[in-house]
């Protein structure tokens, strides 16, 4: 219960669709069982279609998201182009491993489309940067077990953007309802070739 990963609570999930990807997170910030805020988004944007979801210790979610904003801004200035999701994932991995013996207590999830091919790309990490490439979905946070169950049963290959939105939303919403430490609303991003749709889900407020 006092693991740094489960003090504040929170959940995040990413999914692959047909020529699109989706990433979603809950909005809870808590201190053990007490909810402090129901407006704490855990997804951050680092390019036209590069998104990072961060669950875990809230202070590290803020610190790490700020750190990557700095690193990606520096990359963009140096390279005079946007960072690609795969490059960004390697940046996340190496940055986390820099803190091998005193890690940031976060479980990141990257979702995006390859800028050249338009191929969907998702991956997840452990707190010290081991990358988990996946063809279907990635889950993280205090509701991982519930999310695995929901995604395993709802996800199928080649979902269109609208179907993917429905699938990821139902997966997240129903997973967090079985986890006391996450929930209280959700943000869902659907990423297509030249369109990103952000939807705010109200969700159960109890």
């Amino acid at each position, binding site marked *: 219960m006092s693991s740094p990963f489960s003090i504040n609570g929170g959940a995040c999930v990413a999914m692959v669709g047909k020529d699109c990807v989706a990433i979603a997170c809950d909005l809870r*910030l808590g201190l053990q069982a007490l909810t402090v805020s129901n407006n704490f988004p855990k997804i951050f944007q680092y390019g036209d279609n590069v998104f990072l979801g961060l669950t875990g210790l809230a202070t590290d979610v803020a610190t790490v998201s700020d750190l990557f904003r700095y690193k990606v801004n520096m990359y963009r200035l140096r390279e005079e182009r946007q960072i690609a999701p795969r490059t960004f994932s390697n940046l996340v991995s190496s940055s986390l491993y820099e803190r091998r013996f005193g890690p940031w207590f976060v479980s990141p999830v990257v979702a995006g489309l390859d800028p050249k091919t338009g191929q969907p790309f998702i991956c997840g990490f452990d707190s010290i940067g081991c990358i988990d490439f996946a063809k279907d979905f990635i889950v993280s946070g205090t509701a991982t077990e519930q999310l695995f169950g929901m995604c395993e049963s709802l996800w199928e290959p080649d979902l269109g953007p609208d179907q993917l939105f429905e699938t990821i939303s139902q997966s997240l919403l129903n997973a967090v309802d079985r986890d006391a430490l996450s929930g209280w609303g959700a943000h869902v991003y659907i990423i297509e070739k030249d369109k990103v749709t952000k939807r705010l889900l109200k969700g159960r407020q109890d």
Partner: protein
Amino acid sequence: MEVLLGITGKDFTLIAASKAAMRGATILKASDDKTRQLNKHTLMAYSGEAGDTVQFADYIQANAQLYSMRNETDLSPSALAHFVRGELATSLRSRNPYNVNLLLGGVDPITHKSSLYWLDYLASLAPVPYAAHGYAQYYCLSILDKHHHPDITLGQGIKLLTLCTDELKRRLPIDFKGMTVKAVTKDGVVDIQFDDDKVVKAA
């Protein structure tokens, strides 16, 4: 048993802090002011470990004032909150971190929007409509959930605060010696006269 409370309203942010300075079970002082004014439109309340609190608050206050003098502009409440979070987050992973919990309230000098930031010793930052720290959270957040509205007036805010302090007097085992109450409005920080002598009997 330190109490920090914060409530935002239409055009103000109320910050209240208990007046008791405690050391173990002893009350050393009954008129302690656990707040610091960072600039004209921002007020910070603090609680936590004895030495750390004042040391950290003074450091933040000095830096906020230095910024205002150098740039002839005040930092916005949001900017200050993120600055404080950065300092606390750096300290968290140092050899001896500051053990300080904060509430940062303010009114944006340009947009006149009121804001309140909840910040704990781990440097978790959350913008909130109302907040509390310590045991007060368990007693007051439910009351505020029920009665708070984003566009309440200052009078209604003070009534809401009284509702909270009454409950604290009723349920906290130790007397916290009343509250210092301050309101941040577009005209700056004003002290609010708050009745501490009202006796609330436990049920």
